[in-house]
């Protein structure tokens, strides 16, 4: 696993040039490889040499990473370093952006994610997503939760749907708060409740992986704590990749942490290692607050 380490002198050189604000030469950037343990023996999601382009400009450079079964991987890094872009590759949400191109090998349980023959509809049912801003549909709470099961034909009988709604809301920790007002609009809930509703909505289609893009950035500390607890519970059944701006959050919910910098995956390690004893200077600079 540690075959990915890089010549120490070269690494220090490239880190220093970035810290002093000098432009990194392309050749140097290409040479940079991820330090730490980007791979896993029980990979659920497997990404190799992923490059993402928005038109001409490259947002992700040669990223390779595994996300293990029932593992929570946190992705951190300064704004604009490509965390969201990378996350959105995993369920092909980048397809919806005009001019966005993804290269590399990505697979879910060994099956390719990209490819002419791959249908994104079942893929997205298996890889659910929770967004930065809570985005419940302007429908009732009940309708929000059954939306996915209905379009995928998972259930259509009222009794089955009722069961799915209760199950999903319970797992999202929202059931007790909303069970008496399932027919009220989901948009009328508080921010934290809306985000949990979105999680329930994602769970309702029984995904295997849940992607979360800064799910707590619009929430207050109490709602945030509630969702962090929830993520920990969800880990039993799901594989989770979470982008976060809060290092405390990454430390609390994840087993491994990936540090992105300017479109490169700089370091992946056990969360504890990353926050107590980072291998790479850039990671250290970030977590000690020297930039970000």
């Amino acid at each position, binding site marked *: 696993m540690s075959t990915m380490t890089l010549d120490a002198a070269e690494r220090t050189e490239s880190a220093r040039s970035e810290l002093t604000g000098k432009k990194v030469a392309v050749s140097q950037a290409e040479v940079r490889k991820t330090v730490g343990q980007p791979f896993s023996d029980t990979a659920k999601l497997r990404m190799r040499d992923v490059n993402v382009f928005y038109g001409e400009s490259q947002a992700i450079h040669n990223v390779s990473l595994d996300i293990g079964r029932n593992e929570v991987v946190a992705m951190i890094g300064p704004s604009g370093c490509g965390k969201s872009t990378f996350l959105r590759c995993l*369920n092909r*949400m980048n397809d*919806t952006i*005009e001019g966005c191109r993804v290269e590399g090998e990505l697979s879910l349980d060994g099956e390719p994610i990209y490819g002419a023959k791959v249908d*994104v*509809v*079942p*893929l*997205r*049912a298996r890889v*659910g*997503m929770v*967004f930065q*801003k809570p*985005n*419940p*549909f*302007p*429908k009732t709470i009940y309708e929000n939760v059954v*939306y*996915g099961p209905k*379009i*995928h034909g998972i259930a259509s009988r009222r009794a089955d749907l009722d069961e799915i709604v209760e199950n999903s809301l319970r797992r999202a920790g929202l059931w007790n708060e909303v069970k008496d007002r399932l027919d009220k609009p989901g*948009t009328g809930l508080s921010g934290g409740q809306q985000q949990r509703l*979105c999680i329930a*909505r*994602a769970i309702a*289609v029984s995904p295997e992986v849940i992607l979360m893009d800064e799910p707590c950035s619009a929430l207050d500390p109490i709602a945030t704590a509630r969702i962090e607890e929830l993520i920990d519970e969800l880990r039993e059944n799901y594989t989770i990749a979470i982008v976060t701006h809060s290092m405390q959050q990454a430390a609390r919910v994840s087993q491994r942490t990936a540090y992105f910098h300017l479109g490169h995956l700089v370091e992946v390690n056990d969360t504890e290692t990353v926050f107590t004893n980072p291998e790479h200077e850039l990671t250290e600079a970030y977590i000690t607050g020297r930039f970000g």
Partner: protein
Amino acid sequence: MQTPTLFALLLLLILVAYGTGFSRALSAARSRGGLRNLASLPSYHGLFAALWCGLPALLLLGAWLIFDDAIIRFMVMHSIADKPDTIAGQNLLYAQIQNLSAGHLIGEASPQLQSAAEHLNQLRSNANTLQAFLILVLAVGLGAFALLRFSPELRAREKVEKVLRVILITCACAAIFTTVGILFSVLFESLRFFQSVPVSEFLFGLHWSPQMALRADQVGSSGAFGAVPLFTGTLMVSAIAMLVAVPVGLMAAIYLAEYASKRVRNVAKPIIEILAGVPTVVYGFFAALTVAPFIRELATSVGLQASSESALAAGLVMGIMIIPFVSSLSDDVINAVPQSLRDGALGLGSTQSETVRKVVIPAALPGIVGGVLLAVSRAIGETMIVVMAAGLAANLTANPLESVTTVTVQIVTLLVGDQEFDSPKTLAAFALGLMLFISTLVLNFIALHVVKKYREQYD
């Protein structure tokens, strides 16, 4: 002094007041060490002086222009001893006096008229002098007053903002009062109409034939004012138009907003909107000369009877005219649906069309309904196309191949040509206008209400 000269002079004074206020503020600021020590910026001090100088004077000038004729007339007529009793007679007399004073009366004028005309001339020239004097004194006086009030602590900005607000409110009110004014004038004429034709006959009568006998001995035309055939005609043409415009416009909007790439969108959107800029008379002859004959031929070829002017032709072309209206309003509301909702739906594995059908359109629906209602009121009020393509015969029919007539068409035909302004035939136009006004008002009201409701959801 002539009014334009006076006006120009006034503008000059305003400029001077502005400049003086501005420079006084500037020099005060300089002596106190910077603009920050003034309560308001120099431009506000300038505006403050300019408003004091100009606004009252302009208002007075305006009032003067509106009222001076009436006052002068009153004074002239007051000075005449034996004037006619009737209003018409008085009008005639005053017209004569006016002509005489302007120097082009033909024939003999009585001494009384002569003296009245002189009196008029005298009053006019006095009024003119008085006007110039008063207005200039007012402008200079108030301008000087404002400048004398100047001090660095003067809160000129707040006062100017207040005045500007009042000016804006006045303009807004002008628009509202115009609407109300139109409504009332139509309403009163309609009431006169309903004195000769009962409301129930107008609203529920099935026969429309507004020709009245001009002379007592004329036969035949007694006039029938049952407007139901016009209402049904209007409804049919509008319904056909909406049947064309709503699906096509809506789907065009969905394509543009959800499917088209940026490049297609940038080209297609303006092209569709050009349709909205075509004058309706062009649509009218397109309907009358191309579409209507085509429909008739088509109908005859399948063995149907079709008249050369038909509700179908007018409705189809009107629908085409309204497409850009529907599509651009729908496009706006569809674009206003947050991208995060689409992402949410796509992220759950919806296909694009499921996303559009189950999330985007329901979210945009209130706005779309509002847009469609606005389009309906447009269709009801549309005139030129139906005048040219729908016909004049007030048929009570459900067959779109027959010619029908609409409320707007009848208003036009009732008012075209020489009219007596108090015959029921002419007044009927006002009653029809009132119907149009009420129905479009109600539609617009509902539509705006719906649109507003929708806005609240996302803002």
